[in-house]
């Protein structure tokens, strides 16, 4: 194993460990903050795979926006401070089964689909914004436009849900 492999594995361990802490911690706010660590380690993993644009998108969207959204959700609903005793749900074994099944499907798809696909890590700038833009605006234009409709639907849905008088 090279140094890069070691760093990549360590980042993976940090990401998984922080993710386990997210679901096991007794303090809801700490769960959101552990999620920052997990997402940050994931961004580091993307960086190690030379996908630098994806890594900074991970930092901007997940570490920045999604965690802010989660913290807002916590602040809006229960306003807890300190430990919460009633965080364990009776459904947690079902949740564990669903999580394992989802992970199984994802890993199987990835392994079967990309087992023989190799990308060299020593090409300069392959994960930057420009190659991504070339592929999005040459090949994946329709999914890109459909995404805007998805964002619109989510935006309208959030407004409708949060405003009672509409």
């Amino acid at each position, binding site marked *: 194993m090279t140094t*890069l492999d070691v760093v990549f594995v360590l980042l993976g361990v940090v990401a998984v460990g922080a993710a386990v802490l997210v679901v096991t911690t007794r303090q809801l706010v700490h769960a959101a903050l552990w999620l920052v660590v997990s997402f940050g380690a994931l961004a580091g993993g993307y*960086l190690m795979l*030379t996908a*630098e*644009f994806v890594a900074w*998108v991970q930092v*901007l*969207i997940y570490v*920045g*926006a*999604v965690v*802010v*959204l989660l913290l*807002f*959700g916590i*602040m*809006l609903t229960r*306003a*807890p*401070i300190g430990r919460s005793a009633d965080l364990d749900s009776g459904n947690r074994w079902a949740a564990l089964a669903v999580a394992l099944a989802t992970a199984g499907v994802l890993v199987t798809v990835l392994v079967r689909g990309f087992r023989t696909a190799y990308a060299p890590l*020593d090409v*300069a*700038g392959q994960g*930057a*914004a*420009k190659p*991504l*833009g*070339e592929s*999005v*605006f*040459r090949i994946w*234009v329709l999914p*890109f*436009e459909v*995404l*805007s*409709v998805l*964002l*619109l639907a*989510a*935006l*309208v849905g*959030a*407004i409708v849900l*949060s*405003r009672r008088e*509409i």
Partner: protein
Amino acid sequence: MNTYFHDYLVVFVLVLLGAGIVAGGLGGNRLLRPHRPTREKLTTYECGVDPVGEGWAQSYVRYYVFAYLYVVFAVDAVFLFPWATVFALKGYGPTTLGEMFVFLGFLAAGLAYAAKKKVLSWV
């Protein structure tokens, strides 16, 4: 080690250096300062007035929409970066320009809806 990893090693060292400056400043402060806490000194500083209630309060649900708008427009901004690097290149041109404006148009419709429902007015 190629230039990509070398560049990010520099970024990493810079991050460590920044963390070291903050930790060194606070740590040096802690070593040098006298430490005589009293009840009054340990209360939360709130403009020199005694604090009222707890530091944790529920917030209004309307602020959630602002956080949500931020998420939507962060996603939107993320797509502007790859677009900005290619739209002037040979073989893209007005079509790519139009595609981005279709994308922005959909989101602008959402923003117009939010404005129409007076979500954006600060209360």
